[in-house]
């Protein structure tokens, strides 16, 4: 069952009904004092409810959200180290896109490397000893994206899959649970398709062959399947295939794009992004694409979900103005 958005008007554009733009007039500005009083009243009401032992619906547990960063720069693809001590993420700052490592307790943050060309979308290997990431060589000017691995100390840079002969883009690596393979996308054969390859670049295998776009693979914790986003049925929907490319199964059918799938550590849930309610929210569902729940429910953009080793969700949101990382320590509805 799909959770309904907190603001029903957020479903505008999907044919539900039209949303009138909020009138923002001088009177609106003048009403700030009244709003402040309403805020106080709201806090009092919340306290009363809490004291009465009434639990908030899980999907509205935004009070439990932890904001991890405060710089507001655009960010993408967070990834927790297997031991939960480090969070890798990509930050856009000025003319730079770089991967950063942030200590779980916030005591330390450092760049993964010191290179000037854009680096992005780093993801930890299952043993925590390597990070696979996308390396964008900007020369001459079109960009040339390749997948490399590097140690957590930024040393021992090793190519996984690079352009061969002509410009192509390899990106969005995802480790197999045994660390012996990486799933990724490449345009090397004339369209964006899914591939798997050994971390040292051997045994490249193409998994999909469709004129649509296939992107953002996520390898299941049991190693059996790879979930990805595809445009073969219209706009982006989630699908899964076996790790040998067989047995394509469509997981979502929504009036909106579904993208950036991420497996929970126990393999029982998938997190993904969808704009099916009118703006980008993070949803979770079971591995068959059923029991879909909106876990962010906020009019801001919520995207790039990533699970913590203990089953929490980290995502990127601009709910406080700029784009920052947030942590939902417990996912509403998990463990049912």
């Amino acid at each position: 069952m799909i959770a309904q958005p907190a603001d029903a008007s957020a479903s505008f554009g999907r044919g539900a009904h039209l949303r009138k733009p909020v009138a923002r007039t001088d009177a609106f500005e003048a009403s700030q004092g009244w709003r402040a009083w309403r805020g106080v009243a709201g806090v009092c009401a919340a306290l009363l409810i809490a004291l009465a032992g009434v639990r908030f619906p899980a999907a509205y547990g935004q009070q439990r959200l932890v904001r991890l960063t405060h710089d507001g720069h655009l960010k993408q693809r967070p990834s927790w180290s297997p031991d939960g001590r480090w969070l890798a993420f990509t930050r856009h700052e000025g003319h730079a896109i770089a991967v950063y490592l942030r200590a779980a307790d916030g005591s330390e943050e450092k760049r993964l490397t010191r290179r000037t060309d854009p680096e992005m979308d780093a993801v930890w290997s299952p043993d925590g000893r390597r990070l696979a990431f996308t390396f964008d060589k900007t020369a001459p000017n079109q960009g040339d994206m390749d997948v490399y691995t590097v140690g957590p100390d930024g040393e021992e840079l090793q190519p996984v899959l690079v352009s061969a002969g002509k410009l192509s883009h390899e990106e969005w690596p995802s480790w197999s649970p045994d660390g012996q393979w990486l799933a990724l996308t490449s345009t090397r054969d004339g369209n964006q398709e899914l591939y798997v390859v050994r971390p040292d670049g051997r045994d490249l295998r193409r998994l999909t062959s469709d004129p649509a776009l296939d992107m953002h693979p996520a390898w299941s914790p049991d190693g059996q399947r790879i979930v990805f986003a595809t445009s073969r049925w219209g706009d982006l929907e989630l699908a899964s295939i076996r790790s040998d490319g067989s047995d394509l199964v469509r997981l979502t059918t929504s009036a909106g794009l579904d993208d950036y799938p991420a497996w929970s550590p126990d393999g029982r849930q998938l997190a993904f992004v969808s704009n099916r309610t009118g703006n980008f929210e993070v949803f979770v569902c079971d591995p068959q694409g059923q029991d879909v729940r909106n876990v962010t429910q906020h009019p801001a953009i919520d995207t790039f979900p990533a699970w913590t080793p203990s089953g929490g969700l980290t995502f990127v949101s601009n709910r406080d103005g700029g784009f920052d990382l947030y942590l939902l320590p417990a996912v509403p509805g998990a463990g049912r």
Partner: protein
Amino acid sequence: MLRLGLQRVCGDGRISRRALVYAGGLGVAGLALDDLFRLEASTGQAPRRKARSIILLWLWGGPSHLDTFDPKPQAPVQYRGPFAPIATRVPGIQISELLPQLAARADRFALVRSLHCRSNDHGIAGTIGLTGSDAGGMSLGGQVVPGALGPAHGAVVSKVLGFDASMPRFVTLGGHLHQGKRPIHGEGGGPLGPLHDPLRADYDPAQGVKLPQLDLIGGQSADLLSDRQRLREALDGQLRVLERWPAIDRLDQFRRQALGLLTSPEARQVFDLSREGETLRRRYGMFRFGQCCLLARRLVEAGVRLVQVNWSSHVEPVEDTGDGGWDMHDRNFQQLQDRHAWMLDQALAALLDDLSDRGLLAETIVVAVGEFGRTPRINEKAGRDHWERCYSGLVAGGGLRVGQVVGASDARGELPVDQPVTPADLFRTLLQQMGIGTTQLTTAGLTPRGELIEALL
């Protein structure tokens, strides 16, 4: 002036052609057409639906029309891309699902889906978009199109309305446009001279508003200079520099104007975004383009007649990673979804709301367009290449007829099939709406380019 005010007006409320010609003559003697507009207004029968200002959101690099304002869901998968269309507030009009806030405001804008131009080179198409002609445009290879380079649309406005020492007519927010290392011709006054070049400003998320032409003031931003003590210290220091500067007497009017802007507290406040509430600033978006749109609103509110907001200086998104251009030969869909589309959606929707709430939308034209569109057929790198044969633009406000689509493209978005129009047609129409028509242009010594798009008027 008095005599002009007694001129007969035409039946439709417009001042007679003779009066306009006379006014043009007066312009030579110091009476600019701006005075004419005031006189028109004083008659109480000023032309209806006349816009006062234009905000040009210059989507440098060329957005994909199929993925923004002209979706083709029925086209083959190799064309339509991974984004679906959504309904808008106007029945029958659909735009990309990446633009939900604009969809909710479709009654406030018109889409022109039949734009086309004569070049798929950023340099030449950029010149066409900014001046209405390819003359003087420079290609990626460095070849220059024969003919005299025309003035930018903002320079035309500046010329016709006359130079204003207290407030520039034409402001560009953003750096100089270029492709690779080659500059784009046609951003400034051109044959009209540097007096009609734009005043340039920009917004940097880390530094606030920047006024590069005011680098006389030690590189301090307008935000920083909002502190009176710091301003006084900066100016004291600057005066000492100026006193030693032998070229002080050769400061042209333009720099005097710029310096005047900074030293006039009232004028300087226009550039001080900290005077806006945090809520409104967030509504525009705390990224460069969003804050530039807010700055554009402040500028037109203060009297600037054409504000050009450059999405970026580079055409390539990879070159300017925060909010680089729309030239998405590669990874078009990823970049649209992750950055460009929502940035445009949020900032432009906020701009329309803000202008409307302040009663400015009726007199301010907002136009969002790039130099061309992108290939309907997706290339082998999940991108789209240059496509000048058909693309889209958005216009709003200024008394234009909105809530409609003008023109149409074919089933794959490859060619216009109804009402094909050029960038020259578009800006001829917008200038007309500002009261700058054939008479005003020729009186100012300018050659009118393009035809009016009647459906917008």
